[in-house]
């Protein structure tokens, strides 16, 4: 039996259990709507709430923030690993930033970027940057010394040493950082869409929740999960392409 089939089966069983618990009044349907109602509301949410355009907006914001955090996060991590003083001076701040509830700074971002998608993207980007930087530093620092020595024994230039040994050796750890970063980005993007009522799936969740359309709210959350799934599948493909087997 394939793992994917088992995964889908486990999800269906879990939903069935929730459905039963709600139907038997163990869980209040005014707090958690029955899964059957959520499935039934998909058509309505898709047609009436223009979910496709909202989905594309959130996906686009995530994609932009994802590309930015990959480029700047990895570059930042590499620079901090390369210049010890910079790392000693800034690593604690970056780690502190990872734990800070940056979403609360959304009014400041709105003042700087205006009430538009860039506020949302930049909030997602800044909130997701620390794990990428920290994991890049970790990956570079943990490159096995013997691999570096192999490079030295072949007289590699510092640029060759980086591109041919350090970077590919650090890739699995960097990918962990990018994955974590994307989770942070998605949470913040949907959260800020929710807060500033600008658009995307976050705003839809806000609207439906305020209308007390619980089934619709959960259906919209399913689309957020779909964005997340799409990102992780793409990332996994990219990782397999860059590092086929470890």
């Amino acid at each position, binding site marked *: 039996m394939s793992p994917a089939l088992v995964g889908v089966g486990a999800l269906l069983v879990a939903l069935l259990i929730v459905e039963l618990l709600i139907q038997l009044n163990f869980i209040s349907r005014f707090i958690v709507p029955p899964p059957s109602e959520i499935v039934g509301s998909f058509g309505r949410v898709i047609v009436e709430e223009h979910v496709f355009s909202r989905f594309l907006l959130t996906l686009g914001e995530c994609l932009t923030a994802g590309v930015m955090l990959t480029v700047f996060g990895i570059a930042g991590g590499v620079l901090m690993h390369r210049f010890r003083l910079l790392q000693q001076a800034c690593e604690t701040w970056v780690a502190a930033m990872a734990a800070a509830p940056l979403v609360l700074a959304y009014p400041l971002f709105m003042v700087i970027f205006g009430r538009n998608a860039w506020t949302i993207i930049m909030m997602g980007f800044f909130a997701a940057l620390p794990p990428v930087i920290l994991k890049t530093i970790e990956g570079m620092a943990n490159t096995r010394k013997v691999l570096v020595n192999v490079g030295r*024994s072949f007289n590699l230039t510092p640029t060759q040493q980086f591109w041919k040994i350090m970077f590919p050796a650090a890739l699995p750890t960097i990918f962990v950082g990018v994955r974590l970063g994307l989770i942070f980005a998605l949470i913040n993007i949907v959260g800020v869409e929710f807060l500033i009522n600008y658009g995307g799936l976050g705003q839809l969740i806000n609207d439906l929740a305020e209308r007390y359309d619980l089934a619709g709210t959960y259906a919209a959350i399913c689309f957020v999960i779909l964005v997340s799934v799409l990102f992780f599948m793409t990332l996994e493909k990219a990782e397999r392409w860059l590092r086929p087997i470890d």
Partner: protein
Amino acid sequence: MPSNASANDAILVADDIVVRFETPEGPITAVDNVSLMVRPGEFLSVIGPSGCGKSTLFNVIGGLLAEHQGVVTVAGETISGPHKSIGMVFQEESTFPWRTVTDNVGFPLELVGMPKAQRIDRARHFIKMVGLDGFENRYPGELSGGMRQRVSLARTLASEPKILLMDEPFAALDEQTRLLLGDKVLQIQQQLKQTTLLITHNITEAVQMSDRILVMTYRPGKVKRIVDINLPRPRTSEIVGSEAFGRYVAQIWSDLREEASRGMQDEEKHALEHHGAAS
């Protein structure tokens, strides 16, 4: 200086190498006035107990350790860092996990800008030489420890070094694999007339493969004795059962035993001191 090789006909000369390290317990002399010479096509092994500075000497000769006294020359040229004439095989597993066997072996050829088709051909030649044909497209993660060490060896051979410098390349392998890989190295060394310097703590391995064996003392690492191995060539691992082989092993062990005992006593003393300080 060893008497049975003169500086003129040597391809590799290490002269009066001294390496000192600063430690929390004070400075330690890891290598003390070690001199050696290797002639073209010769197989020289450096053997000694753990902590005698063998790997430090490997790093000095390979140009990876700059802080030392003394001079290393390759064909008369003093080296001040890694030298293109010296190919190194490391003790630890050192294949690139993100590259296939062919790409690992072709790595040094890629660095010199060899066209891809030619590089693959050349890499396959060395893959075949180490007996890994059929595994060209596998990744190191799909291979055993012995096979990975053969990939490392093939990668180093692909750079066509004048001197092959190996630091206990089979240390992590079981005895049977080690003997069989020793056969492979001997076969390649004889085929390529490859000058080889092997660092090892394994007496059987050293006697099986070497023309000469340099025995080092426990810390500070000095040259204790150089033993000529007059066993017939070509050799295979079958030679380990011969009487002459046994005599060489016994002779080297009698030299090493004293040093290994000193090493063990030193470690016990340190452990006791640490334990005393801790309690």
